C-alpha cells in the first residue's frame, strides 16, 4: 500500500462503530525501517495512533479497538514526530553524498508497517536501504 492512497482513510472504532478520525500522515522509524505510528486528524483526543494499536489496516478503513488508542504523542516515538521526520517530498541522499531525487511516495506493508520501497521520479529504492530521515534529507545506502 502507498502513503498517498492511505492518507485520508477513516479510522473506525470496533467497539462503538464510529468514525474516530482520519489518517493524516505516517511516522516512520528509519532504524526499524517501518511505520511505527499514524498521525491522525479530526479526532476527539490526541493525534497519534501507535501501529501496535491498529486492529486492521483495510482497503476502506483502519480499525482500532477504541478511540482512546489515539493519544497525544506517546513516549518513545516523540523523537520521530514532526515535519523533520516526514518522508514525502524530501530529497533522497545516498550515503556517498549524492542526491538521487525526491520522495514521491512510500510503499509499505499494511500488515507489519514495514517500509517496502521509496518511490521517486527516476525509479524505486528498496525500503531496506533506508538509513536516516532528517530535516534535510532521507539518507539511503548506495544502490
Amino acid at each position, binding site marked *: 500500500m502507498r502513503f498517498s492512497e492511505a492518507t485520508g482513510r477513516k479510522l473506525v472504532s470496533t467497539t462503538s462503530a464510529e468514525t474516530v478520525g482520519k489518517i493524516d500522515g505516517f511516522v516512520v522509524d*528509519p532504524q526499524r525501517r517501518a511505520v511505527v505510528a499514524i498521525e491522525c486528524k479530526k479526532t476527539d483526543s490526541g493525534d497519534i495512533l501507535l501501529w501496535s494499536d491498529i486492529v486492521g489496516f483495510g482497503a476502506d478503513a483502519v480499525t482500532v479497538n477504541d478511540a482512546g488508542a489515539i493519544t497525544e504523542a506517546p513516549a518513545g516515538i516523540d523523537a520521530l514526530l514532526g515535519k*523533520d521526520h516526514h518522508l514525502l517530498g*524530501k530529497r533522497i*541522499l*545516498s*550515503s*556517498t*553524498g*549524492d*542526491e538521487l531525487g525526491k520522495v514521491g511516495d512510500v510503499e509499505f506493508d499494511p500488515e507489519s508497517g514495514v517500509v517496502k520501497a521509496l518511490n521517486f521520479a527516476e525509479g524505486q529504492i528498496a525500503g531496506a536501504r533506508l*538509513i*536516516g*530521515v*532528517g*530535516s*534535510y*534529507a*532521507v*539518507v539511503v545506502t*548506495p544502490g
Partner: protein
Amino acid sequence: MSRLMRTSELHKRPVVTMGGEDVAQIKDVVFAAGGGAVGGFALAGRGLFSGPSDCGLVWGAVAALGSDAVMIDDESVLGSSESVLDASAGSGGSGGDVMGSQALTDSGVDLGKVVDVIIEVQGPRGSQCDAIGYEIEASEALGTKGTRVLIPLPDTLAASGDHLMLPAAAKDFVSQDLAGFGAAVEAFREHLSQGR
C-alpha cells in the same frame, strides 16, 4: 571508484549526518601534507538557527564526499576549526593559500595563475583526498593565454604562497576538462617516476 572535483564547487556544500540532518556547510577547504591532500574543512552554520559557526571537520571523520553533500556519521565528529588547522599543520601543511599564486616550472617559466584546486576523492571512506591538480589561468607559455586549463601535480610539490613549483614536463600534460584529466595526471606521474 574515484572522482575528481574542483574545490571551488565544495563551497557551501551541506554537511549532512546519516540521520538526514544538515548540520553545517563548507566554508573553506583546509589542505594538509604540503598542499598535497585535503586535511579537512572549515565549516559555517546553516540557516537562521545555525549552531556554532566556528567549527571544523577533519578529513578522517568524513564518511563520504559526494556531488551534493558531505556525509558524516553524526554531529559528534565536528570539532573546532583550530583542530582542523592543527591536524593539517602537524602533517606538514603550509597553511598558505595557493589561490592566486603563480605556477612556475622548475625551468623558470610562468604557466599562469592558480584559480582552483582539483581533488581526487576515493570511494566511500577513502583513505586520502589527494590534491591532484590545479586549474590555472593560462599564461603565454601555454599558447592558450587567458583560458582556464588543468595542470597535473606531482606527488609532492613546493608551494610558498607566491609561487608553486612544478616540473617543466607538467605543461605537456595539460587538460581542458575534468573528463580526461585523471588519465593525464596518471600519465604525468608515470612520466616523472620514469625520469628518476
